[in-house]
């Protein structure tokens, strides 16, 4: 191994994305067949997510942001266009276990303790017992849940449960983290706290994160890039590069720079809304 010939093949595409792009979508579309006729969930989506990016997808419900995340995860199949994840098809990426997925709900298995829940992907992927224990301890520390490993999910608060589910997604070696409104069901204070922790975690682990949200402050606070989407049909209306520094204390949200990005996001959302109703 290690010769130039064994390098992963480049994508033979005119609009060849940078080799460092983790997710690359070209003209991606997805139409669901429903009883009321076809529903276009996504159309004409072009996007590159670079390694180490923190990309937020923001938009009203029905704009396809969750659908796009599910396409990346191979939980939905696109009906047109192409998409690569880590240079391969989403299906191969899923089979290579190259991403961790955090759902809207924690989806912890109630019959497993927090430790055992984090061990679940590790058991499935065949990690040894000693390695499992080391990873459980490391990821529990990463999400500030050390000492809660023996608890059952119902003994933890909603915020702690969601942190445990993030630990579960971090336990195995996936460089890409897909998060679907992970803090949507939590109250503002818990959410602020978790946002801060998530940035810290991102800085420490250097993962690439795709983050779906419908909160403007959350998107601006967390992201290096903000993808604004709009519904009917679901599409990207704006991609905003954040000018904020990587080091972000919570009170950065009061700065003029932050408010300016936030207002551009708001304008993008409003533009997407202007020609319906």
């Amino acid at each position, binding site marked *: 191994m290690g010769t130039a010939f064994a390098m992963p093949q480049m994508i033979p595409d005119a609009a060849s994305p940078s080799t460092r792009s983790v997710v690359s979508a070209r003209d991606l579309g997805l139409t669901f067949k429903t009883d009321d006729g076809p529903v276009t969930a996504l159309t004409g989506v072009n996007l590159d997510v670079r390694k180490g990016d923190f990309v937020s997808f923001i938009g009203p419900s029905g704009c396809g942001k969750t659908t796009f995340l599910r396409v990346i*995860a*191979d*939980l939905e199949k696109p009906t047109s266009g192409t998409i690569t994840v880590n240079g391969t098809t989403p299906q191969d990426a*899923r*089979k290579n*276990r190259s*991403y*961790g*997925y955090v*759902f*809207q*709900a924690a*989806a912890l*298995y*109630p*019959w*497993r*303790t927090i430790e055992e829940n984090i061990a*679940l*992907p590790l*058991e*499935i*992927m065949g990690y040894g017992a000693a390695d499992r224990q080391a990873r459980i301890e490391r990821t529990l520390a990463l999400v500030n849940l050390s000492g809660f490993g023996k608890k*059952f*999910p*119902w003994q933890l608060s909603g915020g702690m449960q969601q942190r445990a589910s993030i630990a579960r997604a971090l336990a195995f070696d996936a460089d890409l983290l897909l998060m679907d409104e992970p803090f949507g069901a939590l109250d503002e204070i818990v959410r602020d706290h978790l946002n801060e922790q998530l940035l810290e975690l991102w800085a420490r682990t250097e993962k690439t994160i795709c983050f779906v949200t419908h909160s403007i402050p959350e998107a601006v606070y967390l992201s290096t890039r903000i993808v604004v989407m709009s519904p009917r049909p679901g599409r990207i209306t704006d991609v905003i590069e954040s000018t904020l520094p990587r080091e972000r204390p919570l009170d950065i949200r009061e700065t003029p720079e932050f408010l300016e990005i936030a207002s551009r996001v708001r304008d993008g959302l409003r533009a997407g809304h202007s020609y319906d109703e």
Partner: protein
Amino acid sequence: MTAREKILPVLTILAALLALWYAAAVFLNAPFERDTAARAGTTITFSEILPRTMAQARPVLPAPHQVLAELWDTTINKPVTSKRSLVYHAWITLSATLVGFGLGTLLGITLAVGTVHNRAMDRSLMPWIIASQTIPILAIAPMIIVVLNAIGISGLLPKALISTYLSFFPIAVGMVKGLRSPEQIQLDLMRTYNASSSQLFWKLRWPASMPYLFTSLKVAVAIALVGAIVGELPTGAVAGLGARLLAGSYYGQTVQIWSALFMAAGLAAVLVLIVGAAHSAVLRRMGARP
């Protein structure tokens, strides 16, 4: 809730039932005493009738203490190997019940697993499973016994198979529901891990189905006992609670019938309690909220 608050309602109901039973026994058994007196050409007062209604050899409705005395006599006072021992008969029925219940559990789980994993079985099996339960068991029980006897199988197994026939049903239905109980988000999670179908089964579907399994088992163990008793009725079985019931009704031994009935009810209660205890033990190990 204090112990007194728990026990008092139970005792009140029990006392009311006993009073009702004694009243019914007096009412139902009194005509026989009046007829006897009339045939002897004597008159009889109510105060003379009252004690006699509770001491007949073959009463229409035996009084509770008669049943208790019979139960005591046939369990404690007889060696368990004796054919007059109710414990002996209960054991005959219980062994068929347990074998039938075990087979029924295996069959029910197997059918449920097949139904959940195989589209053809899913489409074709459930109507047959439901149809199987619309046939009166009293009609099919003699057929099972006769057919099996013709191919040389007799004794415990035919009765056990009737238990199986009844008890697989709630388990199959409950387990289909239980194995399908995981939410979409839990299934999606397993998909993101690229879990194999056996991992999906053992790490998600099976543990998720446990509460459903035990609820079904409680129903199944009680009807397995009914199945074993029914299996003893139409075949002239010489031993077992069903045989006791049958012999009792041939000879008008109502006290014997009632004591066999109470034994069966007690047995069912114990079986359901054991399954219930296993249920809570398993759920506690699975981290259920106390």
